[in-house]
C-alpha cells in the first residue's frame, strides 16, 4: 500500500492524524508528515483518513 498526499491541497486540518495516528502526524513546524508505505494492517485506518480529509488530498495506491 502506498499513500500519497497532495500537499498543494492539504490545509492542515489534521483529521487524518485522528483517523490514522500511526501513519499521519504533524511535525514540530505544524506541517503534515506521513508514512508513505504503511503496513497493510493499517489499511482500514488509512482508508478512514482518506475519507475524512476535508480537501480529499489523500490517495491510496495498491
Amino acid at each position: 500500500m502506498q499513500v500519497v498526499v497532495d500537499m498543494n491541497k492539504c490545509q492542515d486540518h489534521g483529521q487524518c492524524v485522528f483517523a490514522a495516528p500511526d501513519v499521519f502526524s504533524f511535525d514540530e513546524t505544524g506541517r503534515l508528515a506521513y508514512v508513505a508505505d504503511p503496513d497493510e494492517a493499517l489499511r482500514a485506518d488509512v482508508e478512514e483518513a482518506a475519507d475524512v480529509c476535508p480537501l480529499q488530498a489523500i490517495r491510496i495506491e495498491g
Partner: protein
Amino acid sequence: MSTAPVVVAGASMAGLRTAEQLRAAGWTGPITLVGDEPHAPYNRPPLSKEVLAGKAGFDSLAFRPRAAVADVEWRLGTSVVRADLARQAVELSDGGSLSYTALVAATGMRPRRLRCPGPTAGRHTVRTLDDAQALREALTAPGVRVVVVGAGFIGCEVAATAMALGAAEVTVVDPLPLPMAGPLGELLGGALKRRHEQRGVRFALGCGVTGFEGEGRVTGVALADGRVLPADVVVESVGSIANTEWLDGNGLDLADGVLTDEHLRVGGRPEVVAVGDVARFPNARYDGVPRRVEHWSIPTDTAKHAARVLVAHLAGTQHGLDPFAPLPTFWSDQHDFRLQSFGAPALGREDVRVLDGDPDGDVLVGYHHRDRLIGVVALGGQQAAAAAARYRAELLRQPAPTA
C-alpha cells in the same frame, strides 16, 4: 431470480460513502445510486471558498470512489420521485421503477429561497457545482456590489470570497444581531463580525429582507427598516430544506428530514436507513433529541454506521453496534482565518469561557453544559485550530450529559 439491488436515493457524498461502506461491510450484491445532478459525486465545501475564488478548478472536486464500488450502477440526472416502502419499490423521474432489497435515503438538502417580491435574476444560492459556477461568473464582473442574505456558514464564507475577488461592496444581512450566532453564540459571533469588518465586509444585522428591487433583474435589496441596499449580485444563504417529498405517503415522520432510530433506521423498517444531512437522528453522545446535522463529517459517519446495520440485517446477523454517537466537528475558512469546532458548542452557549488567547487574536473558546465542557471552537490561525484539536480526546471520553 436475481437479487434486487440496494437502492441509494441520492448520489452525492452520503450516497457514495454508503455504497463504499456497504462493500466494506460485506455486501456483494448489486447497488444502484440514483442522483438528480448530472455530475458524479463531488466535494462541496470548496464551492464557497477555493473554487469560488478560482484557486482550484471545478474539476478538482470529484471524489475518487473506492475500487470496491467500481461495479455499482449510477443513474445520474435522475431522481427518485416516489417510494412505496410496503412494496419495497421506488419510481424514478425518467418513468422507470426499481424494486429494492434495501433502501438508503441520501437525498440531502436544497437551499431555502426567500419568498419576497421582486425579480429573481441576479439572485444566487450555493449548493451545487452549477450554482457555484454561475455565482463565480457574477462575482468576477468588475466592481460588483454584493448583498449576502444570511450570516451563517455559507453567507460568511461567500462574503469573504467576494471581497477577495475584488467586489466593490459586500454587505451581509441577517435578522439576528451577530453572524453565526446560532452555532457560536455571542462571544465568537462578535469576534467574527469584527474580523469581517476589518477586512471590508459590511453588515446589516437585526434586520430582515422585505423585497428585491429592479426590473427583470435585481438592482437592490429592500430591508425591513426601509433601507435599500444597491446590489448587482444577491446571494441567498438562508438555510436549507430537506429533500423528503419522495417519501411522502409512507407514514414516516418527515417534519425536518427523515426521522431515524438510534441506528439510522427509518419507520421501524430494518431495510430502510437514512444518511447524510437529510437524516434526523438521535445522538447518544448528547441528549438523545433527534436532529439533522449539516456538517461535512456527517455523510461519512452516518454511512459507516448505517451500512453495517443494513448489511447485518441483510445477512440475518446481529450488528452488535452501540447506538450512533458521532463527535460533531466542523470548520469554516473565511478570509485568512479558520473556525474549527469539536463537540456540540450550540448545546453550551449559555456558559462560554475563553480557554486560551483573546477574541481579537487567536482564541480558543469552551462551551459548557452543567459546568462540563461540551464543545470547543477555535478562531484564528493554524495554531488555534491545533489547540482545539487537543480537546478532542477529552470531548470523546465524556459520557453523555443527562438532560
